[in-house]
């Protein structure tokens, strides 16, 4: 049932994005670095957005000895 996982976790993406936004907000980095961070941040935002748009609920089943009946788990 498990679908493919994201190469980099969404939490990491969001954390880094926040980090970049904060650094840029402070505005105390050289212009070159600022442009690089901006590009990185925009990439992260785009990747995260795409990932979220494609997100689907993943459901795994943990079978119990009493309840692992064939008619139950076929549509889950």
């Amino acid at each position, binding site marked *: 049932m498990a679908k493919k996982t994201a190469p980099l976790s*969404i*939490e990491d993406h*969001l954390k880094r*994005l*926040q980090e*970049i*936004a*904060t650094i*840029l*907000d402070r*505005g105390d980095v050289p*212009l070159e670095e*600022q*442009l690089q*961070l*901006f590009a990185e*941040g*925009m990439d992260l*935002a785009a990747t*995260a*957005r795409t990932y*979220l748009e494609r*997100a*689907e*609920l*993943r*459901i*795994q*089943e*943990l*079978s*119990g*000895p*009493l*309840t*692992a009946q064939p008619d*139950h*788990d076929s549509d*889950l």
Partner: protein
Amino acid sequence: MKIRDIRSEAVTVGELTQAIKGLLEEGLGSVIVVGEVSNYKVASSGHRYFTLKDDDAAISCVMWKSRSLQNDPREGDRVVVGGRLTVYPPRGNYQLDVHALRPEGVGDLYATFERLKQALAERGWFDAAGKTSIPTMPRRVGIITSPTGAALHDMLTTIGRRNPLVEVLFRPALVQGDSAAADVARAIAEMDAAGVDVMIVGRGGGSLEDLWSFNTELVAAAIHRATTPIISAVGHETDVTIADFVADVRAATPTAAAELVTPITLTMIQADIDRSAKRMCDALLDRVQELRRLAEGFIDGTAADRLTERLHLRGQRIDDVTGRMQVHLRHRVQQLTHLVDHRQEHLQSMHPYRPLRLGYAIVERNGSPIPASAPLAPHDEITLRRYNQTADVVVHQVSATDLSSNPHHIQHGQENSSPLD
């Protein structure tokens, strides 16, 4: 409608009945009644109607078809019923909406419930201190419930809608019947070992008997033992079970539990990304504007003056230089020159040529002023730039001057050359 109003003025029958309804339904709510069954009838609709009575009184009862009942009681049976008092306005009568019915003495569920509740409370299993809080952004959520009930569907739909990034680990369990308590307890232990951030244990609504496994010590102990935060979600809002007291959080319904495990929704995450992106764009725009201001400052005031001085001093050479420049660069110089022209007035007062009107001269070599620090030597070919003349001269003789003896002069000398270095 307030009681006070009813007493002080005439009211309609409907208003009075509504007041009675409020008094009985809200004032009494859930009750447990012991009595004798009489006139027990099962209607063709499947609903059961009877009267519960004792020596002194009688009360009409209804037990809807949807309420589960193991055996129909017989006339004259002494029973314990649990239910809510309801008023039926069209007929002006009241009746007991029976949720559960048991023969008296044989497994009095309510008494058992109260005894267990008391015992576990004394053991400290309900203490707030023992409760674990639900993580703010659970990644893996365990669900223990019936694989066939609406509760599972409701929870999956709610989680999927709110935050499909969540991974669900589902453990189907028997939630009704004799082996239910044991299976739910085992499921909790398994889920605890499986490593989830939070688990939901629950089922949809039902009679007290239906929910009974969640009132057992077996399930209570399993919840108490587990280290994973547990949300109990048994039945409807009005159903309260022992599991609810032991669990870290009680959710009113399975759907409410699903909402609790997805406190951060996809929409919120998306809004957060948008906010971050906007912050980045704003920061960059601010920087660009700051740079623009800086650039304007550069071709403004003193900085612009210095640039203009260079342009003027280098006179004709500009044409040669610009001739070798890219077209856009030449354009830029023209722009700057143009800008400087507009500031002519300001420049007048600041202009380094101003002293030339007083008779001072700039000593230049190859079109550039010779700094005071560079010594002159005999035979040097230099240019004296005066206010309205230049003179090419050859140095005949040099001699040292005591600089400190004429500070006024030095100041001028420095003024004339320093902007050009």
